[in-house]
């Protein structure tokens, strides 16, 4: 014979202030737990999805990121002739030799100087990265000082509207367009014609990277091996673009995760203790009730499950509120320095089904751990003594 659910809800309602407090405690913990996971996932998503599955990036060996990478024109021209590289309709290889560097711009929010990544690209870059789309203005023209800015740069830095001019590399550059890139890292960059940039920055024959697409990504190992075995190019290495960006995100996301998880674990102890206090007191206050229930013929296991159910209800309500609060974080975005390129990049909190499920499991565990001993104690009460209690 089971104790009806209505008994649980009524009990919670009777002590509504205490119940509300415990629920808020759980909600706070779940909120922080979910927020941390969302942050780490946001960094990952922004960075990892910057790279495409089919692209290959060529960098200088052991360079931590594109900024420190250097690839000579000879190597680039040679690699571009590989037959495995995809060709465009006009028969040119889908490859973009790029120059990556950083400049200083003023942040609108704080008026501080921030570092912004600028990338000189070849026209093929837009075929290699189809998610890059001009949303305002027009494409930059080759051979003249025109640039387009990513939407995050447009929003976060002053003087980054269409028609403004940026000063870098000792020249003036007119902003002619704003582009989006599906929320990926490119939205925190400024793009222009690589050949103009090379002259302005006086780079002679040294590019930063080469990115190209393969007809068949399975050829990657063949191509990689060919480059490695060529003594002229033993200073460069090939990586799949997605892998490169995942490595870039690893450091940041990993740090957030470790720190966040530690904090949350400490937190959860606090919440469990809160739940325990509530449940123990509920048992202590309701000794007579428990005695009555037992006298009416309810069994020990019914009592145990009724009390456990009570703390689970608190945990689930807390989880619901916590996740709901955390979901509002999706409207916020943060900007931080990418330690691989030393430039600012903006990312947001990203919620996923996995995070929701983890948060719920986390709350349920808290509820069970916090509620088990008190429930066990209630179930163990001796009927006669319980009825005698004052």
């Amino acid at each position, binding site marked *: 014979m089971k104790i009806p659910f209505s008994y649980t809800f009524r009990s919670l309602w009777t*002590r509504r*202030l*205490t119940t509300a*407090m*415990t629920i*808020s*405690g759980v909600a*706070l*913990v779940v*909120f*922080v737990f979910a927020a941390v996971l969302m*942050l780490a996932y946001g960094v990952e998503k922004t960075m990892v999805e910057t790279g495409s599955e089919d692209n290959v990036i060529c960098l*200088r*060996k*052991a*360079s*931590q990121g594109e*900024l*420190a990478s250097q690839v000579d024109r000879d190597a680039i021209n040679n690699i571009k002739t590989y037959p495995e590289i995809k060709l465009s309709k006009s028969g040119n290889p889908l490859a973009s030799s790029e120059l990556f560097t*950083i*400049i*200083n711009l003023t942040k609108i929010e704080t008026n*501080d100087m921030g*570092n912004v990544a600028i990338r000189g690209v070849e026209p093929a870059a837009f075929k290699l990265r189809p998610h890059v789309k001009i949303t305002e203005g027009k494409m930059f023209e080759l051979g003249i000082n025109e640039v387009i800015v990513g939407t995050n740069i447009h929003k976060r830095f002053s003087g980054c509207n269409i028609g403004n001019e940026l000063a870098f590399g*000792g020249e003036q550059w007119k902003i002619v367009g704003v582009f989006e890139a599906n929320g990926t890292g490119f939205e925190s960059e400024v793009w222009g014609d690589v050949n103009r940039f090379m002259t302005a920055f*006086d780079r*002679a024959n*040294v590019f930063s990277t080469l990115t190209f697409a393969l007809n068949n990504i399975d050829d990657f190992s063949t191509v990689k091996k060919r480059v490695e075995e060529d003594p002229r190019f033993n*200073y460069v290495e090939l990586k799949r673009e997605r892998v490169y960006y995942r490595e870039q995100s690893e450091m940041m996301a990993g*740090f*957030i995760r470790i*720190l966040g998880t530690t*904090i949350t674990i*400490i*937190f959860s*102890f*606090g*919440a469990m*203790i*809160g739940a*325990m*206090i*509530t449940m*123990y*007191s509920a048992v*202590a*206050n309701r000794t007579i009730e428990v005695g009555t229930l037992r006298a009416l013929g309810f069994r020990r296991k019914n009592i145990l499950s009724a009390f456990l159910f009570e703390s689970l209800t608190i945990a689930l309500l807390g989880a619901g509120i916590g996740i709901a609060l955390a979901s509002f974080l999706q409207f916020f975005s*943060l*900007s*931080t*320095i990418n330690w691989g390129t*030393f430039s600012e990049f903006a990312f947001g909190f990203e919620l996923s089904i996995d995070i929701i499920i983890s948060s719920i499991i986390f709350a349920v565990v808290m509820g069970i751990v916090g509620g088990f001993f008190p429930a066990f104690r209630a179930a163990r009460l001796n009927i006669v003594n319980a009825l005698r209690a004052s």
Partner: protein
Amino acid sequence: MKIFKLILKNFKRHKLRLSLTIVGIAIAVMAFSLLRTVITAWNAGVDIASPNRVVTSHAVSFIMPLPISYRDKIAKIPGIESITYANWFQGVYKDKNQFFPRMAIDAETFFQVYYEYKVDTSLYLEAMKKQRNGCIIGKKIAKEYNLKIGDKMIVDGDIYPGRWEFEVVGYYSGKGDPKVDETWMVFNWSYLDEQLRQSQSGRGGYVGWYVFKVKDPNTIAEISEAIDKEFFNSDAKTKTQTEQAFNQSFVSMSGAILSAIEFVSFVIIGILFLVLANTMIMSARERIREYAVLKTLGFTTSHLVMLITGEAIIISFVGGIFGIAVTFPIVDVLAEAFARIFPIFIVANSTLVIAVSFIIVAGIISSLVPLYRSIKTSIVDGLRHIG
């Protein structure tokens, strides 16, 4: 003192709940103190900066190099006592996780400008000047990797590609000065430069940044302006700022993460408050009848305030002190673990002050609801009340 006696008697009624509450508060206070300590450790570089040291770096970013030719031009500016320069070398020693600063420096002048960094004997410094690939390491690093004089350090270059072999010729330490980070490895810039000129001719002749000591800190603004003006029209513009501001720029890079930690540390205080308030509300609910009896006996409102608020403050205080007490050993353990990320990891006094004030405030606020209830309930209703 009657009230105090009553408070103590009340503590004995629910020993389990009382101890859970104290443990809950202790955990919250500990978590709060730990997070604040992480924030202080992050900012430590700013706090330990010397007031008369100034850094000149590339205007765009400190990772961009400046020509070595700037050195003499900067040194000419009046008011500068001694000038040195350094390159961030990094590289991989053993594996990627063995992170500690590795820098190319000018042995001649580096320890003049970083005057609090003491090389253990002048012999070491002489050896450093003579031996091209010699390096001097901090005491902490020497201990951690068990490196002795004459040992080789093999570093796999990343910013400066290649396999680099250094030989330990000496140690430096702070001689007990807590502001000295004893985890650096420094080697001759000239060695780096000659290697670069051979392998990547374009990269020779550059330094990462210049650091100089001024005679009078009041002249810093003037000197900085003069330097930046000097190079304003050159390819590599400079940005000159105090060491403190330079270190601050590193901190603000992670600003978003720091603000998040700060925010979370205050959420913890919220949880502390919830745990305590919960306990107080429960006790008050159970004792409505007693309060009515006390009122009948002639106890006044102020007695009730002392009774209830006193109890809350004592509970939170005991929990708080307990939490602060366990923070110290935990921080010591973490200081070992984080030695490379946070060379200086200690509980700041400000952390303790904030924690203690929150403890008291939490005690007062959490007793408000039970107070209100006990005062509002009339004697008759109180005697009728069933908990």
